[in-house]
Protein backbone atom coordinates (compact mmCIF):
# COMPACT_ATOMS: atom_id res chain seq x y z
CA UNK A 1 0.00 0.00 0.00
CA UNK A 2 2.95 2.30 0.64
CA UNK A 3 4.23 1.67 -2.84
CA UNK A 4 1.34 3.64 -4.36
CA UNK A 5 2.75 6.96 -3.24
CA UNK A 6 4.05 8.77 -6.29
CA UNK A 7 5.11 12.17 -4.91
CA UNK A 8 8.22 13.33 -6.66
CA UNK A 9 8.29 10.23 -8.80
CA UNK A 10 10.49 10.53 -11.84
CA UNK A 11 10.08 8.28 -14.85
CA UNK A 12 13.09 8.23 -17.12
CA UNK A 13 12.30 8.31 -20.84
CA UNK A 14 14.15 9.48 -23.89
CA UNK A 15 11.93 12.34 -24.99
CA UNK A 16 12.13 16.00 -25.93
CA UNK A 17 10.18 16.94 -22.80
CA UNK A 18 12.75 15.15 -20.64
CA UNK A 19 15.58 16.83 -22.49
CA UNK A 20 14.33 20.36 -21.83
CA UNK A 21 16.35 22.36 -19.36
CA UNK A 22 14.98 22.14 -15.82
CA UNK A 23 14.97 25.93 -15.45
CA UNK A 24 12.92 26.32 -18.63
CA UNK A 25 10.50 23.68 -17.43
CA UNK A 26 10.04 25.44 -14.11
CA UNK A 27 9.50 28.75 -15.87
CA UNK A 28 7.02 27.18 -18.29
CA UNK A 29 5.12 25.63 -15.44
CA UNK A 30 4.93 28.96 -13.62
CA UNK A 31 3.72 30.76 -16.74
CA UNK A 32 1.11 28.11 -17.37
CA UNK A 33 -0.14 28.28 -13.78
CA UNK A 34 -0.68 32.01 -14.17
CA UNK A 35 -2.33 31.47 -17.56
CA UNK A 36 -4.57 28.82 -16.11
CA UNK A 37 -5.92 31.23 -13.52
CA UNK A 38 -6.77 33.81 -16.15
CA UNK A 39 -8.91 31.36 -18.08
CA UNK A 40 -12.60 31.91 -17.45
CA UNK A 41 -14.39 29.69 -19.95
CA UNK A 42 -14.74 25.94 -20.25
CA UNK A 43 -13.64 26.35 -23.85
CA UNK A 44 -10.29 27.65 -22.57
CA UNK A 45 -9.96 24.64 -20.27
CA UNK A 46 -10.66 22.38 -23.23
CA UNK A 47 -7.84 23.91 -25.25
CA UNK A 48 -5.53 23.81 -22.27
CA UNK A 49 -6.27 20.14 -21.61
CA UNK A 50 -5.63 19.32 -25.26
CA UNK A 51 -2.27 21.03 -24.96
CA UNK A 52 -1.37 19.14 -21.78
CA UNK A 53 -2.37 15.84 -23.38
CA UNK A 54 -0.13 16.72 -26.30
CA UNK A 55 2.78 17.26 -23.92
CA UNK A 56 2.07 13.95 -22.20
CA UNK A 57 2.20 12.21 -25.58
CA UNK A 58 5.49 13.92 -26.40
CA UNK A 59 6.94 12.87 -23.04
CA UNK A 60 6.36 9.17 -23.88
CA UNK A 61 4.93 8.54 -20.41
CA UNK A 62 1.72 6.52 -20.45
CA UNK A 63 -1.35 8.61 -19.70
CA UNK A 64 -2.51 5.93 -17.28
CA UNK A 65 0.52 6.51 -15.13
CA UNK A 66 0.02 10.28 -15.11
CA UNK A 67 -3.65 9.91 -14.21
CA UNK A 68 -2.75 7.54 -11.37
CA UNK A 69 -0.94 10.45 -9.75
CA UNK A 70 -4.26 12.33 -9.60
CA UNK A 71 -5.82 9.72 -7.33
CA UNK A 72 -4.63 11.18 -4.01
CA UNK A 73 -6.25 14.57 -4.72
CA UNK A 74 -9.62 13.04 -5.51
CA UNK A 75 -10.91 13.69 -1.99
CA UNK A 76 -9.82 17.32 -2.13
CA UNK A 77 -11.50 17.73 -5.49
CA UNK A 78 -14.78 16.18 -4.38
CA UNK A 79 -14.71 18.30 -1.23
CA UNK A 80 -14.27 21.48 -3.31
CA UNK A 81 -17.06 20.42 -5.61
CA UNK A 82 -19.56 19.84 -2.81
CA UNK A 83 -18.65 23.00 -0.93
CA UNK A 84 -19.30 25.03 -4.06
CA UNK A 85 -22.45 23.22 -5.04
CA UNK A 86 -24.05 23.56 -1.62
CA UNK A 87 -22.80 26.91 -0.44
CA UNK A 88 -22.71 29.17 -3.48
CA UNK A 89 -25.91 31.14 -4.01
CA UNK A 90 -27.16 32.70 -7.21
CA UNK A 91 -28.91 31.69 -10.42
CA UNK A 92 -32.01 29.55 -10.44
CA UNK A 93 -32.74 27.09 -7.67
CA UNK A 94 -32.34 23.56 -9.02
CA UNK A 95 -33.22 21.60 -5.91
CA UNK A 96 -33.92 22.46 -2.31
CA UNK A 97 -34.66 20.68 0.90
CA UNK A 98 -35.22 22.59 4.15
CA UNK A 99 -32.25 24.95 4.44
CA UNK A 100 -30.10 23.21 1.84
CA UNK A 101 -30.44 24.31 -1.72
CA UNK A 102 -28.52 23.75 -4.93
CA UNK A 103 -28.41 26.70 -7.27
CA UNK A 104 -27.16 26.82 -10.83
CA UNK A 105 -24.35 29.27 -10.08
CA UNK A 106 -22.92 26.86 -7.49
CA UNK A 107 -22.92 23.92 -9.88
CA UNK A 108 -21.22 26.02 -12.54
CA UNK A 109 -18.51 27.36 -10.21
CA UNK A 110 -18.07 23.95 -8.61
CA UNK A 111 -17.27 22.22 -11.88
CA UNK A 112 -15.20 25.19 -12.96
CA UNK A 113 -12.96 24.97 -9.89
CA UNK A 114 -12.68 21.21 -10.17
CA UNK A 115 -11.52 21.41 -13.77
CA UNK A 116 -8.99 24.02 -12.75
CA UNK A 117 -7.54 21.89 -9.93
CA UNK A 118 -7.43 18.80 -12.15
CA UNK A 119 -5.57 20.52 -14.95
CA UNK A 120 -3.25 22.24 -12.48
CA UNK A 121 -2.21 18.97 -10.84
CA UNK A 122 -2.07 17.21 -14.19
CA UNK A 123 0.60 19.42 -15.70
CA UNK A 124 2.51 20.24 -12.54
CA UNK A 125 2.88 16.49 -11.99
CA UNK A 126 4.34 16.36 -15.49
CA UNK A 127 7.16 18.56 -14.24
CA UNK A 128 8.25 16.05 -11.60
CA UNK A 129 7.54 13.07 -13.83
CA UNK A 130 9.87 14.29 -16.56
CA UNK A 131 12.59 16.01 -14.52
CA UNK A 132 14.93 14.10 -12.25
CA UNK A 133 14.92 15.40 -8.66
CA UNK A 134 18.54 16.43 -9.00
CA UNK A 135 17.93 18.54 -12.10
CA UNK A 136 14.85 19.98 -10.52
CA UNK A 137 16.64 21.20 -7.42
CA UNK A 138 19.52 22.48 -9.54
CA UNK A 139 17.01 24.42 -11.59
CA UNK A 140 15.38 25.88 -8.50
CA UNK A 141 18.77 26.89 -7.16
CA UNK A 142 19.56 28.72 -10.41
CA UNK A 143 16.26 30.49 -10.45
CA UNK A 144 16.54 31.51 -6.80
CA UNK A 145 20.17 32.55 -6.99
CA UNK A 146 19.49 36.23 -7.88
CA UNK A 147 17.67 36.40 -4.55
CA UNK A 148 20.86 35.47 -2.70
CA UNK A 149 21.67 39.16 -2.66
CA UNK A 150 18.66 39.71 -0.44
CA UNK A 151 19.73 36.98 1.95
CA UNK A 152 17.70 34.08 0.54
CA UNK A 153 19.71 30.90 1.22
CA UNK A 154 19.15 29.46 -2.27
CA UNK A 155 21.76 26.70 -2.19
CA UNK A 156 20.70 25.58 1.26
CA UNK A 157 17.07 25.46 0.17
CA UNK A 158 17.89 23.39 -2.86
CA UNK A 159 20.07 21.05 -0.82
CA UNK A 160 17.22 20.56 1.64
CA UNK A 161 14.92 19.64 -1.22
CA UNK A 162 17.44 17.26 -2.73
CA UNK A 163 17.80 15.47 0.58
CA UNK A 164 14.05 15.38 1.18
CA UNK A 165 13.42 13.85 -2.25
CA UNK A 166 16.32 11.47 -1.90
CA UNK A 167 15.00 10.05 1.37
CA UNK A 168 11.39 9.48 0.36
CA UNK A 169 12.03 5.96 -0.97
CA UNK A 170 14.37 5.15 1.92
CA UNK A 171 11.80 6.13 4.50
CA UNK A 172 9.06 4.24 2.68
CA UNK A 173 11.18 1.13 2.77
CA UNK A 174 11.86 1.68 6.44
CA UNK A 175 8.15 2.18 7.14
CA UNK A 176 7.41 -1.06 5.36
CA UNK A 177 9.94 -2.89 7.51
CA UNK A 178 8.70 -1.46 10.79
CA UNK A 179 5.14 -2.21 9.79
CA UNK A 180 6.02 -5.84 9.25
CA UNK A 181 7.89 -6.02 12.53
CA UNK A 182 4.89 -4.67 14.42
CA UNK A 183 2.53 -6.95 12.52
CA UNK A 184 4.69 -9.83 13.65
CA UNK A 185 3.85 -8.70 17.18
CA UNK A 186 0.16 -8.76 16.39
CA UNK A 187 -0.34 -5.12 15.43
CA UNK A 188 -3.31 -4.56 13.14
CA UNK A 189 -3.10 -1.71 10.66
CA UNK A 190 -5.93 -2.75 8.41
CA UNK A 191 -9.13 -2.98 10.45
CA UNK A 192 -11.04 -0.95 12.99
CA UNK A 193 -12.67 2.46 12.84
CA UNK A 194 -10.91 5.71 12.08
CA UNK A 195 -9.76 6.41 15.64
CA UNK A 196 -8.49 2.86 16.16
CA UNK A 197 -6.62 3.05 12.90
CA UNK A 198 -5.04 6.37 13.78
CA UNK A 199 -4.00 4.92 17.12
CA UNK A 200 -2.56 1.84 15.48
CA UNK A 201 -0.18 4.08 13.56
CA UNK A 202 1.73 5.07 16.72
CA UNK A 203 3.84 1.89 16.75
CA UNK A 204 4.75 2.71 13.17
CA UNK A 205 5.31 6.46 13.41
CA UNK A 206 7.42 6.62 16.57
CA UNK A 207 10.14 4.27 15.29
CA UNK A 208 9.96 5.92 11.87
CA UNK A 209 10.62 9.36 13.32
CA UNK A 210 13.41 8.06 15.50
CA UNK A 211 15.06 6.45 12.52
CA UNK A 212 14.63 9.61 10.44
CA UNK A 213 16.39 11.61 13.14
CA UNK A 214 19.14 9.02 13.35
CA UNK A 215 19.61 9.17 9.59
CA UNK A 216 19.68 12.96 9.66
CA UNK A 217 22.35 12.84 12.33
CA UNK A 218 24.46 10.38 10.36
CA UNK A 219 24.09 12.33 7.16
CA UNK A 220 25.06 15.61 8.79
CA UNK A 221 28.12 13.95 10.28
CA UNK A 222 29.08 12.40 6.94
CA UNK A 223 28.71 15.74 5.15
CA UNK A 224 30.66 17.55 7.79
CA UNK A 225 33.49 15.05 7.71
CA UNK A 226 33.75 15.67 3.96
CA UNK A 227 33.96 19.41 4.62
CA UNK A 228 30.61 20.27 3.09
CA UNK A 229 29.83 23.92 3.62
CA UNK A 230 27.50 24.65 0.73
CA UNK A 231 26.88 27.89 -1.10
CA UNK A 232 29.71 30.07 -2.43
CA UNK A 233 32.23 28.48 -4.76
CA UNK A 234 30.69 25.02 -5.05
CA UNK A 235 30.98 23.58 -8.53
CA UNK A 236 28.72 20.87 -9.83
CA UNK A 237 29.08 17.63 -11.73
CA UNK A 238 26.38 18.41 -14.27
CA UNK A 239 26.14 22.05 -15.32
CA UNK A 240 22.76 23.11 -16.66
CA UNK A 241 23.02 24.40 -20.21
CA UNK A 242 20.41 26.06 -22.40
CA UNK A 243 19.91 24.51 -25.85
CA UNK A 244 18.13 26.09 -28.80
CA UNK A 245 14.99 23.98 -28.28
CA UNK A 246 14.68 25.32 -24.74
CA UNK A 247 14.08 28.79 -26.13
CA UNK A 248 11.75 27.47 -28.82
CA UNK A 249 9.65 25.80 -26.13
CA UNK A 250 9.64 28.86 -23.91
CA UNK A 251 8.67 31.11 -26.84
CA UNK A 252 5.82 28.82 -27.81
CA UNK A 253 4.51 28.74 -24.27
CA UNK A 254 4.58 32.52 -23.94
CA UNK A 255 2.60 32.89 -27.18
CA UNK A 256 0.17 30.20 -26.06
CA UNK A 257 -0.28 31.74 -22.62
CA UNK A 258 -0.86 35.16 -24.13
CA UNK A 259 -3.38 33.75 -26.60
CA UNK A 260 -5.24 31.87 -23.88
CA UNK A 261 -5.45 34.76 -21.48
CA UNK A 262 -6.56 37.32 -24.04
CA UNK A 263 -8.97 34.96 -25.69
Amino acid at each position, binding site marked *: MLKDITIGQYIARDSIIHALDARIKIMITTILIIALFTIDTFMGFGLFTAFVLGVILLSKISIKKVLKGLKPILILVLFTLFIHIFLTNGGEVLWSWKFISIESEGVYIGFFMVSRIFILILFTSLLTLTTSPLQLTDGIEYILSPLKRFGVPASELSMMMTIALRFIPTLLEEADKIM*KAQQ*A*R*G*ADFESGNLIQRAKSLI*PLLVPLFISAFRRADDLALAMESRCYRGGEGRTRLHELEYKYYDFVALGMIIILAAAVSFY
Partner: protein
Amino acid sequence: MLIELINVSHVYQDENNVKALKNINLEINKGEFIGIVGHTGSGKSTLVQLFNGLIIPSSGTVKINGKNITNEKSNLKETRRHVGLVFQYPEHQLFEETVYQDIAFGPKNLGLNKDEIQARVNEVMELVGLDYDEFKARSPFNLSGGQQRKVAIAGVLALKPDVLVLDEPSAGLDPQGRKQLAELLQYLYQELEMTIILISHRMEEIAELSSRVIVMHQGEIVIDDNPVEVFSKEQKLHKLSLDLPQITEILHRLDERGLKVNTSLFSVSEASAEIIKALRSK
Protein backbone atom coordinates in the same frame (compact mmCIF):
# COMPACT_ATOMS: atom_id res chain seq x y z
CA MET B 1 4.97 -31.13 10.77
CA LEU B 2 5.12 -27.52 11.90
CA ILE B 3 5.91 -25.61 8.75
CA GLU B 4 5.59 -26.96 5.24
CA LEU B 5 6.40 -25.17 1.99
CA ILE B 6 5.26 -26.77 -1.27
CA ASN B 7 6.56 -25.46 -4.61
CA VAL B 8 6.83 -21.94 -3.27
CA SER B 9 8.08 -19.16 -5.55
CA HIS B 10 8.09 -15.48 -4.87
CA VAL B 11 8.61 -12.49 -7.13
CA TYR B 12 8.78 -8.98 -5.70
CA GLN B 13 6.33 -6.82 -7.61
CA ASP B 14 8.34 -3.72 -8.35
CA GLU B 15 10.45 -2.17 -11.07
CA ASN B 16 12.98 -4.99 -11.18
CA ASN B 17 10.68 -7.97 -10.58
CA VAL B 18 13.37 -9.85 -8.70
CA LYS B 19 12.67 -13.54 -8.38
CA ALA B 20 13.50 -13.92 -4.70
CA LEU B 21 12.51 -17.56 -4.25
CA LYS B 22 12.40 -20.32 -6.85
CA ASN B 23 10.33 -23.42 -6.29
CA ILE B 24 11.14 -24.06 -2.65
CA ASN B 25 10.07 -27.29 -0.98
CA LEU B 26 10.78 -27.41 2.73
CA GLU B 27 9.54 -29.16 5.84
CA ILE B 28 10.31 -27.96 9.32
CA ASN B 29 9.51 -30.21 12.26
CA LYS B 30 8.80 -29.45 15.86
CA GLY B 31 11.87 -29.23 18.04
CA GLU B 32 14.39 -28.49 15.31
CA PHE B 33 17.02 -25.80 15.51
CA ILE B 34 17.53 -24.67 11.96
CA GLY B 35 20.36 -22.45 10.81
CA ILE B 36 19.87 -20.65 7.51
CA VAL B 37 22.96 -19.34 5.76
CA GLY B 38 23.51 -17.76 2.39
CA HIS B 39 25.03 -14.86 0.61
CA THR B 40 23.35 -11.44 0.77
CA GLY B 41 20.33 -11.49 -1.54
CA SER B 42 20.01 -15.26 -1.54
CA GLY B 43 16.41 -15.10 -0.33
CA LYS B 44 16.87 -15.90 3.37
CA SER B 45 14.85 -12.97 4.69
CA THR B 46 12.09 -13.52 2.16
CA LEU B 47 11.94 -17.19 3.12
CA VAL B 48 11.45 -16.55 6.83
CA GLN B 49 8.78 -13.93 6.22
CA LEU B 50 6.73 -16.65 4.53
CA PHE B 51 6.68 -18.57 7.79
CA ASN B 52 4.22 -16.20 9.44
CA GLY B 53 2.35 -14.82 6.49
CA LEU B 54 4.03 -11.42 6.30
CA ILE B 55 4.71 -12.27 2.70
CA ILE B 56 2.19 -14.26 0.70
CA PRO B 57 4.13 -16.12 -2.00
CA SER B 58 3.42 -15.48 -5.69
CA SER B 59 2.80 -19.19 -6.13
CA GLY B 60 2.87 -22.35 -4.07
CA THR B 61 1.49 -23.33 -0.68
CA VAL B 62 2.62 -22.55 2.86
CA LYS B 63 1.19 -24.68 5.66
CA ILE B 64 1.60 -23.86 9.32
CA ASN B 65 0.48 -26.60 11.71
CA GLY B 66 -1.18 -28.27 8.75
CA LYS B 67 -3.25 -25.19 7.94
CA ASN B 68 -2.87 -23.59 4.55
CA ILE B 69 -2.18 -19.90 5.14
CA THR B 70 -1.77 -18.90 1.50
CA ASN B 71 -5.47 -18.49 0.84
CA GLU B 72 -7.14 -17.70 4.18
CA LYS B 73 -6.33 -14.11 4.88
CA SER B 74 -8.41 -13.95 8.06
CA ASN B 75 -6.22 -16.36 10.02
CA LEU B 76 -2.92 -14.57 9.58
CA LYS B 77 -3.11 -12.98 13.02
CA GLU B 78 -3.56 -16.40 14.53
CA THR B 79 -0.58 -17.69 12.55
CA ARG B 80 1.60 -14.87 13.75
CA ARG B 81 1.12 -15.80 17.39
CA HIS B 82 2.50 -19.26 16.64
CA VAL B 83 5.48 -18.05 14.66
CA GLY B 84 7.39 -15.20 16.30
CA LEU B 85 9.69 -13.25 14.03
CA VAL B 86 12.62 -11.15 15.23
CA PHE B 87 13.73 -8.88 12.40
CA GLN B 88 17.21 -7.50 11.73
CA TYR B 89 18.01 -4.72 14.16
CA PRO B 90 14.80 -5.37 16.09
CA GLU B 91 15.56 -2.46 18.46
CA HIS B 92 14.49 -0.15 15.62
CA GLN B 93 10.89 -1.14 16.23
CA LEU B 94 10.76 0.00 19.88
CA PHE B 95 8.22 2.76 20.39
CA GLU B 96 6.71 2.78 23.86
CA GLU B 97 7.55 5.00 26.79
CA THR B 98 8.72 2.22 29.04
CA VAL B 99 10.33 -1.17 28.60
CA TYR B 100 7.30 -2.77 30.26
CA GLN B 101 4.82 -1.22 27.84
CA ASP B 102 6.88 -2.12 24.83
CA ILE B 103 7.15 -5.77 25.77
CA ALA B 104 3.45 -5.77 26.67
CA PHE B 105 2.49 -4.59 23.16
CA GLY B 106 2.35 -8.12 21.73
CA PRO B 107 0.41 -9.74 24.60
CA LYS B 108 -1.99 -6.78 24.59
CA ASN B 109 -2.67 -7.38 20.91
CA LEU B 110 -3.45 -10.98 21.80
CA GLY B 111 -6.16 -9.66 24.11
CA LEU B 112 -4.74 -11.00 27.38
CA ASN B 113 -5.82 -9.50 30.70
CA LYS B 114 -3.63 -7.33 32.90
CA ASP B 115 -2.36 -10.07 35.22
CA GLU B 116 -1.47 -12.39 32.39
CA ILE B 117 0.36 -9.58 30.61
CA GLN B 118 2.35 -8.72 33.71
CA ALA B 119 3.23 -12.35 34.30
CA ARG B 120 4.45 -12.71 30.73
CA VAL B 121 6.48 -9.52 30.73
CA ASN B 122 8.11 -10.52 34.00
CA GLU B 123 8.87 -13.98 32.65
CA VAL B 124 10.41 -12.92 29.34
CA MET B 125 12.47 -10.17 30.94
CA GLU B 126 14.03 -12.76 33.23
CA LEU B 127 14.57 -14.99 30.18
CA VAL B 128 16.53 -12.42 28.23
CA GLY B 129 18.41 -11.31 31.34
CA LEU B 130 16.87 -7.95 32.17
CA ASP B 131 16.01 -7.40 35.82
CA TYR B 132 12.26 -6.76 35.99
CA ASP B 133 12.23 -4.20 38.80
CA GLU B 134 15.25 -2.35 37.52
CA PHE B 135 14.21 -2.01 33.88
CA LYS B 136 10.41 -2.11 33.71
CA ALA B 137 9.88 1.65 34.15
CA ARG B 138 12.84 2.83 32.11
CA SER B 139 12.57 4.29 28.64
CA PRO B 140 13.79 1.82 26.03
CA PHE B 141 15.54 4.67 24.24
CA ASN B 142 17.90 5.31 27.13
CA LEU B 143 19.28 1.78 27.15
CA SER B 144 22.46 0.54 25.52
CA GLY B 145 22.25 -1.11 22.10
CA GLY B 146 22.58 -4.58 23.56
CA GLN B 147 19.90 -3.95 26.17
CA GLN B 148 17.57 -2.49 23.53
CA ARG B 149 17.94 -5.65 21.50
CA LYS B 150 17.08 -7.74 24.55
CA VAL B 151 13.91 -5.70 25.03
CA ALA B 152 12.98 -6.19 21.38
CA ILE B 153 13.55 -9.94 21.52
CA ALA B 154 11.59 -10.11 24.78
CA GLY B 155 8.77 -8.33 22.96
CA VAL B 156 8.54 -11.20 20.50
CA LEU B 157 9.02 -13.92 23.13
CA ALA B 158 6.10 -12.42 25.08
CA LEU B 159 3.81 -13.77 22.36
CA LYS B 160 4.88 -17.26 23.48
CA PRO B 161 5.37 -18.50 19.93
CA ASP B 162 5.92 -22.20 19.14
CA VAL B 163 8.50 -21.23 16.56
CA LEU B 164 10.97 -18.42 17.00
CA VAL B 165 12.54 -17.03 13.83
CA LEU B 166 15.51 -14.68 14.16
CA ASP B 167 17.01 -12.74 11.27
CA GLU B 168 20.64 -11.85 12.02
CA PRO B 169 20.02 -11.36 15.74
CA SER B 170 23.68 -10.94 16.61
CA ALA B 171 24.55 -8.28 13.99
CA GLY B 172 26.23 -5.33 15.65
CA LEU B 173 26.46 -6.91 19.10
CA ASP B 174 29.68 -7.06 21.10
CA PRO B 175 31.21 -10.46 21.96
CA GLN B 176 29.53 -10.53 25.35
CA GLY B 177 26.15 -9.69 23.81
CA ARG B 178 26.62 -12.46 21.26
CA LYS B 179 27.47 -14.95 23.96
CA GLN B 180 24.40 -14.05 25.99
CA LEU B 181 22.25 -14.35 22.89
CA ALA B 182 23.68 -17.77 22.07
CA GLU B 183 22.98 -18.91 25.64
CA LEU B 184 19.42 -17.61 25.42
CA LEU B 185 18.77 -19.48 22.16
CA GLN B 186 20.31 -22.64 23.60
CA TYR B 187 18.06 -22.35 26.65
CA LEU B 188 14.91 -21.76 24.59
CA TYR B 189 15.75 -24.73 22.41
CA GLN B 190 16.83 -27.23 25.05
CA GLU B 191 14.84 -26.30 28.15
CA LEU B 192 11.68 -24.79 26.69
CA GLU B 193 11.77 -27.03 23.60
CA MET B 194 11.01 -24.23 21.20
CA THR B 195 11.56 -24.66 17.50
CA ILE B 196 14.13 -22.12 16.42
CA ILE B 197 15.08 -20.83 13.00
CA LEU B 198 18.20 -18.69 12.91
CA ILE B 199 19.57 -16.66 10.02
CA SER B 200 23.18 -15.68 10.51
CA HIS B 201 26.34 -14.78 8.67
CA ARG B 202 28.41 -16.08 11.56
CA MET B 203 29.14 -19.69 10.76
CA GLU B 204 30.44 -20.28 14.29
CA GLU B 205 27.00 -19.47 15.65
CA ILE B 206 25.24 -21.68 13.13
CA ALA B 207 27.59 -24.59 13.63
CA GLU B 208 27.48 -24.43 17.40
CA LEU B 209 23.73 -24.08 17.82
CA SER B 210 21.82 -25.67 14.98
CA SER B 211 20.70 -29.24 14.48
CA ARG B 212 20.11 -28.70 10.78
CA VAL B 213 21.61 -26.23 8.33
CA ILE B 214 19.96 -24.87 5.19
CA VAL B 215 22.16 -23.17 2.61
CA MET B 216 20.45 -20.76 0.25
CA HIS B 217 21.78 -19.50 -3.06
CA GLN B 218 19.96 -17.26 -5.54
CA GLY B 219 16.53 -18.12 -4.23
CA GLU B 220 17.08 -21.83 -4.02
CA ILE B 221 17.94 -24.30 -1.27
CA VAL B 222 21.24 -25.82 -2.34
CA ILE B 223 22.16 -27.80 0.78
CA ASP B 224 19.90 -29.04 3.57
CA ASP B 225 21.64 -31.30 6.03
CA ASN B 226 23.12 -31.59 9.52
CA PRO B 227 25.97 -29.20 10.35
CA VAL B 228 28.67 -31.89 10.20
CA GLU B 229 27.71 -32.81 6.63
CA VAL B 230 27.23 -29.21 5.51
CA PHE B 231 30.55 -27.97 6.82
CA SER B 232 32.42 -30.92 5.33
CA LYS B 233 31.52 -29.57 1.89
CA GLU B 234 34.26 -27.00 2.06
CA GLN B 235 34.72 -26.44 -1.67
CA LYS B 236 31.03 -26.10 -2.42
CA LEU B 237 30.61 -23.53 0.36
CA HIS B 238 33.56 -21.52 -0.87
CA LYS B 239 32.03 -21.53 -4.34
CA LEU B 240 28.89 -19.96 -2.86
CA SER B 241 31.17 -17.39 -1.17
CA LEU B 242 30.43 -18.78 2.27
CA ASP B 243 32.99 -19.50 4.94
CA LEU B 244 33.51 -22.41 7.27
CA PRO B 245 33.48 -21.77 11.00
CA GLN B 246 36.97 -20.55 11.89
CA ILE B 247 37.78 -23.60 13.99
CA THR B 248 36.70 -25.97 11.24
CA GLU B 249 38.72 -23.96 8.73
CA ILE B 250 41.85 -24.44 10.88
CA LEU B 251 41.25 -28.18 11.15
CA HIS B 252 40.84 -28.38 7.37
CA ARG B 253 44.13 -26.53 6.86
CA LEU B 254 45.92 -28.84 9.30
CA ASP B 255 44.44 -31.81 7.50
CA GLU B 256 45.69 -30.47 4.16
CA ARG B 257 49.19 -30.23 5.58
CA GLY B 258 49.18 -33.83 6.69
CA LEU B 259 48.06 -33.79 10.32
CA LYS B 260 45.38 -36.46 10.60
CA VAL B 261 42.50 -34.71 12.39
CA ASN B 262 38.74 -35.00 12.42
CA THR B 263 37.60 -31.92 10.50
CA SER B 264 33.97 -31.88 11.53
CA LEU B 265 34.36 -30.18 14.90
CA PHE B 266 33.02 -26.73 15.67
CA SER B 267 34.06 -25.76 19.18
CA VAL B 268 37.43 -24.61 20.44
CA SER B 269 37.61 -27.19 23.24
CA GLU B 270 36.79 -30.15 20.95
CA ALA B 271 39.25 -28.96 18.37
CA SER B 272 42.11 -28.44 20.80
CA ALA B 273 41.56 -31.91 22.27
CA GLU B 274 41.58 -33.34 18.74
CA ILE B 275 44.77 -31.55 17.78
CA ILE B 276 46.56 -32.68 20.94
CA LYS B 277 45.42 -36.25 20.29
CA ALA B 278 46.66 -36.07 16.70
CA LEU B 279 50.04 -34.66 17.75
CA ARG B 280 50.48 -37.34 20.42
CA SER B 281 49.76 -40.20 18.04
CA LYS B 282 52.15 -38.87 15.44
